């Protein structure tokens, strides 16, 4: 009897405590920039695709929900011919972002991806690619890589000496 009354009393007291329920969707919660939500592909400061189709995100993915195919443009720049994420399988672990050597793939603080049809959860490159640099501004893989691409010849990357003259015998 006492137990029942004390429970009712405690419930009554809760009427005066601070509410924690967020009135979603009218009210949006704060999500940190490093929140692991919807995955995007970013671009570098020059507007070029950051993804170089190295397949590391795909291999890091524990549920194998990333598939892509590498291609190379006329200037020698690698890019994904297609890039597909099956979000109906994605567990938002963020391993793909950890594995990405070019900061191309990033997880964002957006989780509002509900769909009535599973098929709509398959995102292609045009659904993933954004126009900005995302969380990591200022990095451009091609400026530190050794391969030559259009607009950046051998020896023009960061901390690179000019190309060697193989005909020279100077020490």
């Amino acid at each position, binding site marked *: 009897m006492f137990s029942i009354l004390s429970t009712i009393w405690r419930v009554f007291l809760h009427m005066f405590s601070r509410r924690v329920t967020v009135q979603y969707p009218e009210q949006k919660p704060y999500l940190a920039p490093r929140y692991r939500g919807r995955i995007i592909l970013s671009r570098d400061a020059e507007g070029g695709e950051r993804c*170089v*189709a*190295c*397949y*590391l995100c*795909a*291999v890091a*993915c524990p*549920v*194998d*929900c*990333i*598939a*892509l*195919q*590498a*291609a*190379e443009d006329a200037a020698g720049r*690698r890019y994904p011919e297609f890039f*597909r*994420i*099956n979000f*109906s*399988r994605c567990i938002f672990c963020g391993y793909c972002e950890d594995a990405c*050597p*070019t900061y191309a793939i990033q997880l964002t603080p957006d989780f509002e991806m509900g769909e009535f049809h*599973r*098929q709509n*959860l*398959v995102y*292609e490159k045009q659904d993933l690619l954004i126009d900005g640099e995302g969380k990591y501004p200022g990095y451009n*893989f091609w400026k*530190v*890589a*050794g*391969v*030559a691409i259009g607009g950046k010849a*051998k*020896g023009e*990357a960061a*901390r*690179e*000496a*000019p*190309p*060697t003259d*193989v*005909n*020279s*015998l100077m*020490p």
Partner: protein
Amino acid sequence: MATVYIDGKPYAVDAHQNLLDQCLSLGFNLPYFCWHPALGSVGACRQCAVKQFKDEHDTRGKIVMACITQASDGARISIDDPEAVKFRAGVIEGLMLNHPHDCPVCDEGGECHLQDMTVMTGHDYRRYRFEKRTFRNQDLGPFVNHEMNRCIQCYRCVRFYRNYAGGRDLNALSIHQTVYFGRNQDGVLENEFSGNLVEVCPTGVFTDKTLKRHYTRKWDLMYAPSICVHCATGCNVSAGERYGTLRRIVNRFHHEVNGYFLCDRGRYGYEFVNSDKRVREARLNGNAITAEAAREHLREAVERGRAIGIGSPRASLESNFALRTLAGPGHFFSGIADRDQRLVALILDILRRGPCRVPTLHEIELCDAVVVLGEDVTNTAPRIALSVRQAVRQRSFEMAEKLKIPLWLDDGVRDAGQDQRSPLFVATIASTHLDEIASGVFRGVPDEIARFGFAVAHAIDSAAPSSGDFPAARGIADALKGAKRPLVVSGASCGSEAVIQAAANIAQACGAALYFIVPECNTLGCAMVAGGSLDAAFRLAAEGNVDTAIVLENDLYRRAPAPDVDAFIGNVPHLIVLDSLLTRTAERAELLVPAGTFAESAGTFVSGEGRAQRFFEVFPPDGVRESWRTLGMGRWSTLDEVLADLPAELPGLARARDAAPSAKFRIAGAKIAREAHRSSGRTAMLANINVSEPKTPVDPDSPLSFSMEGAEKKPPGALIPFFWSAGWNSIQATNTYQREVGGPLNGGDPGVRLIESSAKEKSYFAGVFEEFPAEGGEWLIVPIHHIFGSDELSLSAQAVAELVPAPYVAVGRESFAQNTMVRVEIAGQMFLLPVRIRSELGARVAALPAGIPPLAGLPLPQRGTIEEVK
């Protein structure tokens, strides 16, 4: 055997080997770069440092390079010694100073020996903050991509290319830290084995340019053990697929056949599988029909009666057998032209009844005197030419042994041997790439070569029939008599029975091993299925006795002159063709049924060595099926059932069953995975079509699964889809699949030899020769073979097609000027061709490139006329 103490524990090792070789054989992870099991040690990279102690009381020890230290009895070494570990980490750090930040866009990434060794030594942070050295790249042709920045100067490429494969146009240029590996200028790599640089290079300097077009990482490819289809050597390959297209071929080590290396035709010819010319759906009179309708049509055609089957030397044993079963033994024809069929039958007869052993490629490398008769080996069976190149080194090995230089010490052996080579004699129609290492060459038309061969046999053993006086024959006879392991290489490519007989006579006279090169991947198997020749089928049709002809994976226009084939097709009311490519024959078919290529089917090929070897589906076929399945009409549902029916009909092929374990084979209850355990994209690669993943296809024909799920243990040799072991992602993982490094695979090398010589008695052929020059204005037109062009399937491969020469006619110096247009009339056909001068051709002898359209199908050698076009 010797005992070596490694980190205090005794191990039994081979005292004739070096420490690195033995440490790897024992399963230690000792990093290395410049050493290669087939190339030996040079001690250039300093990566395999270990500590060696004088005796058990020595605590200081000294750093030695394991690859150039003999595994002597009682040696005490330490791999884990802190000083040795630090030394190795320091070497890697040094090598990485200039290594570019390329791994994400480098095609070697994920199968890079440099990555593996960097991880193995624990180097993970770059301290060096200064500028990196850079190089300009070269365009090395359609096969090999060059990215020189990545080089770590291990010298493996030039050691393979120049010393092992005999190439000349790749070398180390420049000096000190700017040593550059490349050509004098941009251009196609000349050597026929340039593709091996991709595997020999421990990092991404040389990568596969055809893979680059549809790049996929090693871990994402679906592999199956396969057999090369581009010549009769039977090299073992691993074929890799992704998204329904074949992506690349890599070497699959086989100690007795291809060892570590493939030729470029074998490595890059695979692209025909992805060609636009593929037949993907059944067609009746040009209109697409369903597979069921096609089967029904085929059934009706057979039931109508008077159907014949024309097999193919490029179709599997099972497919040929299925056709023979369907058409009936009396109505099965091999699909090989009359003359070629006689040559192959003669070869089979010599190998079965004669006293000569067919050597494996590994045995060829150990031969100390070689005669090549009538065969341009580099162009007809390139991998064998690479073995012959190693055979001529036997003399330098003998010299090194006398000087007590261990044979693995590559530089030492080369210094000791200098230019000394074992005798190699090359008797061919035109000059060959082996001439440069030959001690003697002979040029002539096939009958002159045969005559010369008979003379050599007679000079060795006077019981052999003579054929005329050739002064050079005596020297060759002496060299062969003096050799411990002589070898004769000949074959069917110059279209002469007399040449084959001459080769048999020489081999019998001196007790040599005897290797015959046959034209295609299953020529011997097809001949062993026993059917009439193509000409017999043509005659039958001409008599009006054929209602339906079923042509199995065979372009008849490559077997016989076009007018003959046209006449045959005209005589056959119903032509049914099963093929993977839309050939000229397939274009004329009433019913065309798609056939799986080697990558989409399972079956068995019999190589020139007589070795039956199994190949498996690389990826689940999409609509196309194995020809044996189509032709079986439901008789067989698995490959094992076909193989079970084979012995009763063809006892000679009974042992082909044992070429690989049956589909029931399991390792601890599990199948063998075709994919790497970290293969990616399973739930996304088909999600654009349907978000629900399809069921994994089942392979009833092999113990391999179409997934990443499979046994943890390493499979037996015939079933190895790809080489990988923990810590060894590159092709160097091969080491961990061998009994000892460079030796046979664990569980034995795959395949069974169907032909073993039985006789002890010599029985010489009496030569019959045709006289030449011919009367009147006739020319003798002989074939010249091209590594890129003479093989049918690789003609449809994109990269190989770039290097196929345009049709030409070669003549000697005196008749026509270079590039003159001439009219060549041969076998009832006329061709307008430019002239190429090959000065070694005699008067009134001309040569046509064999197999290059539109010249394919001409029965060469043949008489014809050549006139200048005014």
